[in-house]
């Protein structure tokens, strides 16, 4: 009578065992590395613009543990802005869902600002807040909260009809209905929006560090660009890529953990 406890995604099944999948997932980066090494070795591109992988490793050795100072500075800005943005965005979304009047009022405000690319607003915020930490956090918080408010409203609208109908008919107290039924049912629908918000938070922090900072991975990139130390620039890019990958993995892990009950948790088909 019971259904299978879990099914493997189609893409995983077609690649066979988990060992086989690891090999395939490593093949892409290795091929890119090999191509880069070959182009640099054959000097097909000016080495000042495209140094070899060995030069980038040497740059990492030169910087040493100091790079951690930059990573931590960037990470703190991302996390502070992201957490604040999520808190404000989800709260605004919940209020909009809870009250029709609030929805009409806040939707007008959100839709006025949402089409403006958040990156375009960075110079304006620097004018207002200067190069302070507060300015950078406000930029990220604003960008993330706009995305999360829309994500939250849409997540509630996608709560399965059956659950909504049952909750209303059962005559549950409005607060119980919201807190114990609609909110948990909406969480899986927020997954995409949260991951997009995280990517946006990283972008906004880096852009704001380009424009004015004394530490951070974005600062490292902007200095490397001015001094034409391309190995450091590439190193900072990779560090940023790994940081983004790591934060996204943590987000996916947390969502998989919180929404393990959802039959869609654990990976999409493709």
């Amino acid at each position, binding site marked *: *009578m*019971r*259904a299978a*406890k879990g099914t493997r995604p189609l893409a995983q099944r077609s690649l066979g065992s988990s060992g086989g999948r690891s090999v395939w997932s490593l093949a892409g980066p290795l091929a890119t590395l090999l191509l880069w090494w070959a182009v640099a070795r054959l000097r097909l591109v000016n080495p000042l613009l495209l140094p070899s992988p060995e030069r980038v490793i040497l740059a990492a050795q030169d910087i040493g543990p100091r790079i951690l100072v930059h990573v931590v500075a960037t990470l703190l800005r991302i996390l502070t802005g992201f957490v604040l943005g999520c808190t404000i965005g989800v709260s605004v979304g919940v209020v909009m869902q809870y009250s029709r009047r609030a929805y009409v009022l806040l939707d007008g405000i959100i839709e006025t600002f949402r089409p403006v690319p958040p990156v375009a607003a960075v110079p304006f915020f620097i004018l207002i807040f200067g190069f302070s930490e507060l300015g950078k956090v406000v930029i990220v918080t604003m960008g993330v909260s706009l995305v999360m408010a829309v994500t939250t409203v849409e997540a509630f609208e996608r709560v*399965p*009809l*059956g*659950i909504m*109908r*049952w909750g*209303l*008919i*059962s*005559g*549950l107290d409005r607060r119980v209905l919201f807190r114990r*039924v609609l909110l*948990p*049912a909406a969480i899986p629908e927020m997954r995409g929006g949260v991951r997009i918000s995280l990517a946006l938070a990283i972008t906004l922090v880096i852009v704001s560090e380009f424009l004015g900072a004394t530490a951070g991975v974005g600062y490292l990139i902007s200095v490397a660009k001015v001094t034409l130390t391309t190995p450091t620039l590439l190193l900072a890019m990779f560090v940023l890529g790994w940081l983004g990958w790591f934060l996204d993995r943590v987000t996916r892990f947390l969502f998989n953990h919180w*929404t393990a*009950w*959802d*039959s869609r948790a654990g990976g999409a088909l493709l």
Partner: protein
Amino acid sequence: MIEMRAVSVDLSSRPILRDVNLQVSSGELVGLVGRSGSGKSTLLNLIAGLYTPTSGEIKIDGEPARPGLIRGVVFQEESLLGWLSAIDNVLFTARSEAASGEWGTLLKQLGLEDARDDLPKQLSTGMRKRVELARALAADAMYLLADEPFGTLDAVTRRDLWALWKNLQITTPRTGILCTHDPEEAVRLCTVIYPLKGSRPATTGKPIRIPDRVTALAVDSADPEITLLRNRLLSEIA
């Protein structure tokens, strides 16, 4: 007792139901048979108090219909809370006055004893429907509203659940309405059937009382009277 008198309803200025009259006496399971999109779900939502009629009146034991008055509901669409186990789903809206031992008996009757701690995603569609049925029976001691509850099930599971349903009507009888587009389902499970004629707007036809002899038949028994009643209903709703 559930009563609908001269009920009409428009949704977004479109007429959905016109002059609907329906009466469900205590202990009676009334079938409502109509084509897909004829307004069966709207009618059930009216009785559940989700919609207000444009005209006419709906009373549950003399009180105007409102949400929470009838809490025993089962739908075609899935409505279990996926993050709660089967037993927690049942207990979520269970009547507090009932003895805790009652749930054990109910789960046993519905064949859910081994699945009580499973999450909905670990259960088959048929088992999930059983949990929904258990939740409806635990939530309301008097009434049951069912909107195409067996619509998504395969033929074998549907027949199993018909048998279960009939058995439950004997052991834990409820006054209720079963909406279905399947005339045979209504004939086999209900005591009185109202055909829902037309579509947008639809109206109720004359009720058809199912003879006790037919009601007593097993769900897999072939009987010429079942075929006759089924064909009569089909011609009424066509």
